């Protein structure tokens, strides 16, 4: 009994020593997991590049403490993602995990990570369950809840007074969610809904139906390659300019270079655009372009903010991220200047922020980019936070 007590005391002493200021500066391990391969790989790559931009500019430190970032590919496979976070938590002993590109990956790992009291800083996927009933104090979003981007587009359509609107989205869960999000703020009945199969390449059949339906506007959610296909074909169809094309997660910074001139005039709803005039954003866009020779996408912006958030919170607790309560409060305070301007956490740890409408235009160098044209939603909260028991 005596020896066991001694062992316990020694362990306590060692732990205490580790927690003492002299040792706390040692190093913080952060796990970055995103989709880094396959057709959706550019999204995760932008998240990683922007996160590392902050780390590198701070000389390998966040909040004045050296950090090691473990880069892992979820391959867009939930079972792979679960193994990756297991390895990060059990073998590498990371205390913070960030990235997470797609909702299905988030749903697969959210409970696992937060149950082990590891901080999860989601810099893209924000599915509604974790904003609502399944929320966790160990999760912080630096992006948005999944429905909010279509919601701002819905408000824009309402503000514009469109009476005849058709929708097009892939026939799967996120497609249904986006159209539902659009209709939350656009309550006029739509005059037609098109549901092509997920991964559809040729939209000629759908475009002909839109031509026949003669709406004033079309709301489109066609992420990734589907959006590139659709917008190229839309451009050739002769409907461009006659029917407004309103999009969410379709004409984004990843797809725009591949769409080229075809995308000019397309409307997109989001929380951030590269033309924001605030100093943090101007510096981010300039530095990112200088290093990576491309305009950062919103996925890069979200992840840059994740790094800035961690930087502020780690500094606040003096590197003692193992003091969970203090670190959680420091994250919740979000005491940093975000590149999106307003940034404040709601009770469910999703961001209360403005949502904007953008138009795809050419910049001075002839590259496609997004220009802010309206801000229909100010200090906007997601539709699910009331279901979250956190206060």
């Amino acid at each position: 009994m005596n020896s066991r007590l001694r062992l316990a005391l020694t362990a306590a002493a060692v732990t205490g020593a580790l927690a003492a200021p002299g040792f706390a500066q040692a190093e913080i391990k952060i796990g970055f997991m995103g989709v880094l391969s396959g057709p959706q790989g550019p999204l995760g790559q932008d998240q990683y590049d922007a996160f590392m931009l902050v780390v590198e500019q701070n000389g390998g430190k966040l909040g004045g403490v050296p950090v090691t970032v473990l880069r892992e590919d979820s391959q867009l496979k939930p079972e792979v993602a679960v193994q990756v976070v297991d390895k990060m938590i059990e073998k590498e002993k990371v205390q913070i995990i960030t990235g997470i590109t797609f909702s299905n990956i988030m749903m697969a790992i959210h409970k696992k990570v937060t149950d082990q009291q590891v901080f999860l800083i989601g810099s893209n996927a924000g599915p509604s369950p974790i904003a609502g009933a399944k929320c966790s104090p160990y999760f912080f979003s630096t992006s948005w809840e999944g429905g909010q981007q279509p919601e701002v587009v819905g408000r824009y359509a309402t503000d514009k007074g469109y009476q005849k609107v058709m929708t097009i989205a892939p026939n799967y869960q996120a497609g249904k969610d986006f159209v539902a999000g659009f209709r939350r703020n656009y309550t006029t009945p739509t005059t037609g809904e098109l549901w092509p199969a997920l991964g559809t390449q040729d939209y000629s059949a759908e475009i002909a139906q839109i031509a026949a339906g003669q709406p004033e506007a079309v709301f489109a959610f066609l992420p990734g390659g589907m959006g590139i296909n659709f917008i190229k074909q839309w451009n050739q169809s002769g409907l461009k300019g006659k029917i407004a094309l309103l999009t969410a997660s379709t004409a984004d910074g990843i797809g725009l270079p591949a769409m080229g001139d075809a995308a000019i005039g397309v409307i997109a709803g989001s929380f951030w655009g590269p033309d924001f005039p605030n100093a943090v954003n101007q510096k981010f866009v300039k530095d990112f372009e200088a290093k990576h020779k491309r305009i950062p996408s919103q996925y890069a912006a979200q992840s840059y903010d994740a790094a800035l958030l961690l930087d502020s919170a780690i500094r606040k607790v003096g590197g003692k991220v193992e003091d969970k309560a203090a670190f959680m409060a420091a994250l919740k305070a979000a005491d940093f200047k975000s590149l999106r301007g307003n940034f404040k956490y709601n009770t469910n740890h999703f961001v209360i922020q403005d949502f904007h409408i953008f138009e795809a235009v050419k910049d001075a160098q002839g590259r496609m980019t997004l220009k802010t044209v309206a801000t229909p939603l100010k200090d906007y909260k997601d539709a699910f936070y009331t279901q979250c028991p956190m206060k």
Partner: protein
Amino acid sequence: MTVGLFLTQLLNGLQLGVLLFLLAAGLTLVFGIMNFVNLAHGSLYMMGAYFAAAVGNATGSFVIAALVAVPGAMLLGMLVERVALSGLYARDHLDQVLATFGLVLFFNELVRIIWGVSPLYAQTPSWLAGIVSFGGLFYPIYRVAIITVGLLVALFLYWLINYTRVGMLIRAGATNAAMVGALGVNIRLLNTLIFGLGAGLAGLAGLMAGPIFSVQAAMGEAILIQTLVVIVVGGIGSIRGAFLAALIIGVVDTMGRVFLPIWMSAAMSPSFAQAAGPALASMLIYLLMAAVLAFKPEGLFPVRHG
């Protein structure tokens, strides 16, 4: 639904059909004559699209892009055939599937290494931009160009196979490859030529697809599946079958997507039709293939032996 919409959709189906035909022609020859399952055919299509986009962006000329992409894909196909595939003809289909699936992964990674992870921009040539109108119908000029190219290729293949010596050998090879070899024809060279022809057509399809589809890694996989449906429905080894089946598949797929949800919502509750219509439409060509396999396992237009 108007007559105009119906005709436009018929054109859309025709256009999808000829694009599928460009891919199916090569695949069905390789399958029919060499008895070789080539899953990497979609990768040659992808390489054609990448060659065309890269050259098109560098030179600004669609014609130069075409002059590089089509022979480029053809040479690449012949190189792959010589280096990687010619040793596999005698092996069973599973080995061929595994080897060519490996090639699919190889090419997907290769384009990422060369051109990066982001999709590539491919411009529509300015002289093919815009729309044509006839009788109140509007149709993109570029899609008219795809239809024209596809029909010209069909005519060319008809001439090549029926009126030339190479065509005679191809026909003979499709019927009995061993006998053709025994008669002193260099079957190795013939195989390489056929493979190159198929690869060139896949490259042509990739060139034509660039301005309407996203040029990205793995772009060949989705269309390869539809192409396999075409050659099974048309009858393996038959160019005529590939052509007719491609048109049937193109029209059935397009018409199904448009009119099935409309018809179903007329016949049953709107919420059910809205859920089931698009799902059923995306299955339609596979149902068609299953029906063909059940009633005419040789395909609708099989190669005539004897």
